[in-house]
């Protein structure tokens, strides 16, 4: 008990002493800390920005659904060529078919659902308001496969599908533009010459990445969607879409623009990808479809993130090391400069251990002080970045702990060496030092 309180006094005295001698050399201490501050700050800031970026990417991929496999119809490259060179009207036929959808449903194991979709670019009108939109013909099971928030009314039903009813569900963004002054529910909107009754209003978060992003779509709001039953889409729009292009017509026959295959588990996704590719290859003689596998993308994003973290971590470790070497440098210089003082202290009863402790406390105070300021700046910088740009930054606790820990450890490790050097001197040698 007595022993403990004695060493407490001793420690307290030593801490006071260390702080005091640091304060006596303010500039030197400040410069030493600067290395630590920048090291810690850059580590936290870099990792926060990196984490934010990869988090955003992962979130976007996750919204696509990790059990989904998305198949898009794409215009095969050679027919695109034909289409452009010949000036006259020309019809091509490509893409996914209803047969594809049912084959996928019945031959691929572990499929929980297959969702076919037709996606047609057109304009939607209500009274005098007109908006460009995507008319999406799909099934009621859409809500089970996609992240959809029902804002008002209901989604499409099996009855709508069965009777090819002219009903639609629209996204809330489109509703706000088309119906600035009234509730869209039960109103009728017009696409081409057909009227559809609005039965529901939804908010959608996950679709922007999976819709075929055609060039002409760019710069337009992404939530201008009108959902109608697939059967209605088939009868109202037909299968051949006619497009007017600078004096020439082009006709495209596409049955389905997109099929989303939902698997029962994430484990079955990778195998299913190969099976789907094999299946489609057998029935398509041209390369008119593409597969998007969110899980695959997620894995890639995770791998990229790991790489990113390793690179950032190395840079961070190096900058912390440089800070640590800065501390060691200063400590070595300090020790040489203060050898005589060390001699005096040794002559007056200081043990080697006391000298080591004294110098160690100086480095610990330096690195903890530098680390703390560095953490504060490191937290501040990402916040400023987020506030001034639209970049997402995420400050993870482990990056703070890592930066602080490494700075503390390097500081202490590099402090021990010069301190023990100083203590090893013979008292008389140290005293003779000029």
């Amino acid at each position, binding site marked *: 008990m007595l022993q403990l309180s*004695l*060493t407490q*006094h*001793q420690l307290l*005295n*030593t801490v006071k*002493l260390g702080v*005091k*001698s640091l304060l*006596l050399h303010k500039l030197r201490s400040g410069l030493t800390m600067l290395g630590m501050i920048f090291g810690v700050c850059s580590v936290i800031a870099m990792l926060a920005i990196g984490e934010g970026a990869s988090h955003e990417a992962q979130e976007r991929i996750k919204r696509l659904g990790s059990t989904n496999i998305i198949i898009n119809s794409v215009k095969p490259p050679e027919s695109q060529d034909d289409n452009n060179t010949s000036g006259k009207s020309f019809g091509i036929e490509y893409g996914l078919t209803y047969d594809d959808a049912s084959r996928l449903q019945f031959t691929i194991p572990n499929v929980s659902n297959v969702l076919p979709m037709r996606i047609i670019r057109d304009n939607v009108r209500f009274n005098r308001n007109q908006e460009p939109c995507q008319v999406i013909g799909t099934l009621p099971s859409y809500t089970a496969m996609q992240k959809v928030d029902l804002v008002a009314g209901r989604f499409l039903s099996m009855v709508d599908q069965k009777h090819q009813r002219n009903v639609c569900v629209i996204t809330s963004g489109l509703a706000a533009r088309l119906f600035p002054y009234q509730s869209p529910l039960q109103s009728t909107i017009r696409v081409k010459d057909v009227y559809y009754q609005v039965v529901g209003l939804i908010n959608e978060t996950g679709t922007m990445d999976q819709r075929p992003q055609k060039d002409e779509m760019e710069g337009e709001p992404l939530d201008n969607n009108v959902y109608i039953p697939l059967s209605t889409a088939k009868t109202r729009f037909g299968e051949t879409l006619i497009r007017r292009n600078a004096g020439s017509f082009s006709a495209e026959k596409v049955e389905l623009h997109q099929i989303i295959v939902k698997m029962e588990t994430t484990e079955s996704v990778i195998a299913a990808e190969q099976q789907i590719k094999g299946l489609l290859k057998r029935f398509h003689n041209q390369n008119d479809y593409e597969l998007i596998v969110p899980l695959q993308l997620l894995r890639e994003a995770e791998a990229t993130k790991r790489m990113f973290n390793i690179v950032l971590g190395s840079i961070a470790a190096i900058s912390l090391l440089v800070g640590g070497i800065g501390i060691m440098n200063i400590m070595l210089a300090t020790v040489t400069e203060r050898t*005589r*003082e060390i*001699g*005096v*202290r*040794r*002559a*007056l*009863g*200081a*043990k*080697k*251990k*006391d000298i080591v402790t004294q110098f160690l406390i100086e480095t610990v105070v330096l690195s903890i002080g530098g680390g703390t300021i560095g953490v504060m700046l490191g937290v501040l910088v990402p916040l400023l970045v987020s506030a001034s740009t639209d970049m997402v930054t995420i400050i993870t606790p482990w990056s703070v702990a890592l930066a602080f820990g490494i700075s503390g450890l390097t500081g202490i490790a590099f402090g021990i060496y010069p301190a023990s050097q100083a203590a090893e001197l*013979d*008292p*008389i040698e140290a*005293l003779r030092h000029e």
Partner: protein
Amino acid sequence: MISNPKTIIDIRNIVKIFQVGEIEVRALRGVDVAIKEGSYVAIMGPSGSGKSTMLNILGCLDRPTSGEYYLGGEDVATMDDDTLSVIRGKRLGFIFQSYNLIAQLTVIENIQVPLLYQGVNLKDYEDKCVELAELVGLKDRLDHRPTQLSGGQQQRVAIARSLINDPLMILADEPTGNLDSKTGKEVLELIDELNSQGKTIVMVTHDDDIAYRADRVIRMKDGRVDKDEYRQRA
């Protein structure tokens, strides 16, 4: 009846050899000295005769190349570095020719330094520090730094510092070497005073007048004791 004073220092056949590159410098070539508690010993001799070397060994700042050293009856050769540190801190007081104060500390803090390594609460010793500062005539200079003091004042701080741990013995290597004769005299009177209070004093000096204050003068020559005279105090 006065009891016979104990022998505090007993060195036998002490040899100290410094190896400087190829050359061996024999600073001490076999010294035997015994010093009794409470005595006042002056060590004299020409420059390079080994006075400082001997004092450093007596003060456990340096170890002899060979020979035996019993301090208060204990064999110093068997002690490790920590034990020697404790002995220096608790039993010995040092006064150096060049004062050796710590520049960044004030007068009072310099006096406290030996206490820092004894694990005591500095608060309990505040009065004693002030007392000692008063003893050496620096009561109104407690918060001054060494650079703000004259040489004599600095040496007096060093004396106060050597007394804070109530040592058995004070070792002084030319304590007045850097002082003018007047301040030197004041410092010496302080040391006389300490001896009369019972502290053992071992002091290296070049000055015969100073040596007269001691009750024993050891004259060194070429690393050996040349003469060892006991005298009546002047």
